């Protein structure tokens, strides 16, 4: 058993760390987060063409590097640590994963190389819903003579206003839960598509709403085989789980940096003639934060190993939904706890615009809400334990 990074994985993480320290400084983050696009497109091209991050976990057969989810979460953790503003999560963890899970061989061959090459994507599935599962899909699809008609409203879509490719989940009329769901590729210039930027409290993560009004799509817009239409509910469940693990990675980064920056601040700040890091009341708070960050990391790395097997086929893959809910529940609370404590430990300056801890506090909350908060995921676990429902796919 080696539940630790290999040397190669450490190298990947260290590369991400030093790159992000350079390009995602506080000034750089603040420079892009106020814009509607929310990231630097030139930097995104560097991320794709120099670092190959979007290629990381994509199989070599589709032009990827063929690495695993562990490498992916190690990189995402650093992105959280550095408040990185980019379409990475929406393109790779939503878009590329959707294609990997639901696409035909031809679609994978066609779409994945584009995403690796710098084309951005996102997935729209939920309507104006508090839920985060298949039941939140409200938009409708129907078959037409030569393709599909889509209609509906989608909300809370990461980078949905700027993504080059939108993948939209819709259901057949009157279907419920995971039934009747399909995923469709909707190019940004599709007639009848309207998308609007939603200004958000956490400016480092952009959201959008999408209207599809009587939108007609060709046969090949459906992800998957035509005779399997309406049967992608299970794929969507897996996609949500894989993406939730990616968010958990960001949260671990937020939890860790909230701790590190607070400790660094306390080592400098002097009151009553001592650095405040020497006061036990504050040390104990920091110790609790470290416990949360480390436990969150354990949950994350386990979930990443599970995700790896879920994508490549392995026995642990059975645990995907449970591992994702465990990671998302714990990491959501940990990131929020640490960022909240971080403001308190910084004292008055923690509440100012100038210090970054407030940005982590906001990112912690937006990540918590994204794809189901802690209570949501605990209820998934509770129903598995207490209602006799079988988890896993």
């Amino acid at each position: 058993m080696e539940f630790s990074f290999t040397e190669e994985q450490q190298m990947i993480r260290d590369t991400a760390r030093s790159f992000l320290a350079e390009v995602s400084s506080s000034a750089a983050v603040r420079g892009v987060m106020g814009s509607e696009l929310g990231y630097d497109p030139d930097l995104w091209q560097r991320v794709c063409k120099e670092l190959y991050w979007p290629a990381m976990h994509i199989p070599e057969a589709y032009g990827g590097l063929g690495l695993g989810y562990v490498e992916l979460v190690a990189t995402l953790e650093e992105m959280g640590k550095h408040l990185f503003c980019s379409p990475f999560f929406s393109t790779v963890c939503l878009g590329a994963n959707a294609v990997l899970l639901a696409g035909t061989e031809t679609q994978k061959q066609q779409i994945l190389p584009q995403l690796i090459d710098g084309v951005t994507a996102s997935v729209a599935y939920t309507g104006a819903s508090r839920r985060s599962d298949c039941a939140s899909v409200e938009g409708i699809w129907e078959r037409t003579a030569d393709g599909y008609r889509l209609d509906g409203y989608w909300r809370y879509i990461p980078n949905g206003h700027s993504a080059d490719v939108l993948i939209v989940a819709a259901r057949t009329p009157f279907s419920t839960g995971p039934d009747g769901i399909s995923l469709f590729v909707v190019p940004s210039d599709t007639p009848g598509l309207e998308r609007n930027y939603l200004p958000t409290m956490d400016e480092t993560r952009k959201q959008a709403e999408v209207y599809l009004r009587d939108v007609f799509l060709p046969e090949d817009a459906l992800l998957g085989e035509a005779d399997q239409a309406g049967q992608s509910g299970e794929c969507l469940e897996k996609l949500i789980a894989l993406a939730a693990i990616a968010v958990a990675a960001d949260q671990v980064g937020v939890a860790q940096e909230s701790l590190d920056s607070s400790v660094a601040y306390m080592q400098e700040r002097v009151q009553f003639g001592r650095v405040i890091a020497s006061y036990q009341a504050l040390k104990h708070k920091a110790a609790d934060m470290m416990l949360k960050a480390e436990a969150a990391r354990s949950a994350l790395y386990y979930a990443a190993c599970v995700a790896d097997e879920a994508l490549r086929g392995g026995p642990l893959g059975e645990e995907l939904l449970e591992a994702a809910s465990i990671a998302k529940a714990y990491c959501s609370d940990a990131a929020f706890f640490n960022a909240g404590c971080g403001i308190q430990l910084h004292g008055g300056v923690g509440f100012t615009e100038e210090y970054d801890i407030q940005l982590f506090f906001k990112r912690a909350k937006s990540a918590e809400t994204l794809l189901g908060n802690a209570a949501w995921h605990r209820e998934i676990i509770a129903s598995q334990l207490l209602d006799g429902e079988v988890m896993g796919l």
Partner: protein
Amino acid sequence: MKLSFSAQDETFREEVATWMGENLTGEFAQMRYRGGPGDEHVFVEERKAWERKLHGGGWTCIGWPEAYGGRGATIEQQVIFNEEYARAGGPGRMGHIGETLTGPTLIAYGTDEQRERYLPGILRGEDFWCQGYSEPSAGSDLANVKTRAIKDKDSGQWKISGQKVWTSLAHESEYCFVIARTDSESVGNKGLGFFLVTLDQPGVDIRPIQQMTGTSEFNEVFFDEAVCADSDLVGAPGDGWKVAMGLLGFERGVSTLGQQMLFQNELDEIVRLAKVNGASQDPALRQRIADAHIGLRIMRYNSMRMLSGGGDDGSLQKEAMIYKLYWSSWHRNLGKLAMDVMGPESEVLDAAPYELSRLQAMYLFTRADTIYGGTNQIQRNIIAERALGMPREPRG
């Protein structure tokens, strides 16, 4: 990252499971899941007999080198043994202090004579040990021990006087390792000695402490010129702190997965109860039960990380420092959850005068979890100072 054990280790796992299945039967079957923390007062003689049974199967001291009668088992194998032992419901080990603390200490710091004299009894499940560390004025501040050891000029023997406290199972033990001050002028962690003391002698008085559970597992131990041969001093006079601290590093977390198996067993019982009595329909309790499940799974992942990266020097990594604080806090919450799931029935005892059910005993005993072995507050100091590099507490 690789989460599975090797095929060889899995064969070992089967071997342990098979042996447990075949041997934890008959007279021993009644002890299944008994005798663990909070329950150590039960089946004492039977559990001592069980130690000898274990020895017969070659299952005591498996982590010791073969030269001393062990199996030289790897960390992974020790983890697996503990896990399968607990999975089978193996009773709380009477011999664990001798096996995990005395033995490794003597192997690392002892003389050949000490090893020859004491290791075989531990190995065979015949000699039981207790730990003489804490004192009334040396709790969290362990270095503040007042117990004195004075060398008698005529006999060359040491005479030990003082009081130890919270000495688990002293009343069932043959020997106690004691840290005592060899230099009466010294303070703090200087001038201490590490002594192997025979308990059956006139200078030793053992008095059980009654706990809030109504039972007694630990004791006060009074030494009044208790005799200890010079050959039973481990290391030199003044080396006591080094030996005592070295000993605390030996356990290496190999029993953590076994401990978690017991926790899982308790959680399973709570889940079963919740389904039966309707607590499973209470939204607030559902959240807490799920939280307990999540916490226990993560505890397992924590130990897997801890066990994967341990340095050869036995030094603990940063993440290992959170382990005690994590499990003790989790278990204390589980105790409260158990009572809340039981509802009004949580007040009603199994029998008069004070016979607690398993979950009731667990609930009360978990209040000790966050105190013994370094309180949660001491653990937080350790984490803040050693892992986060924050300034040390000023010492008086």
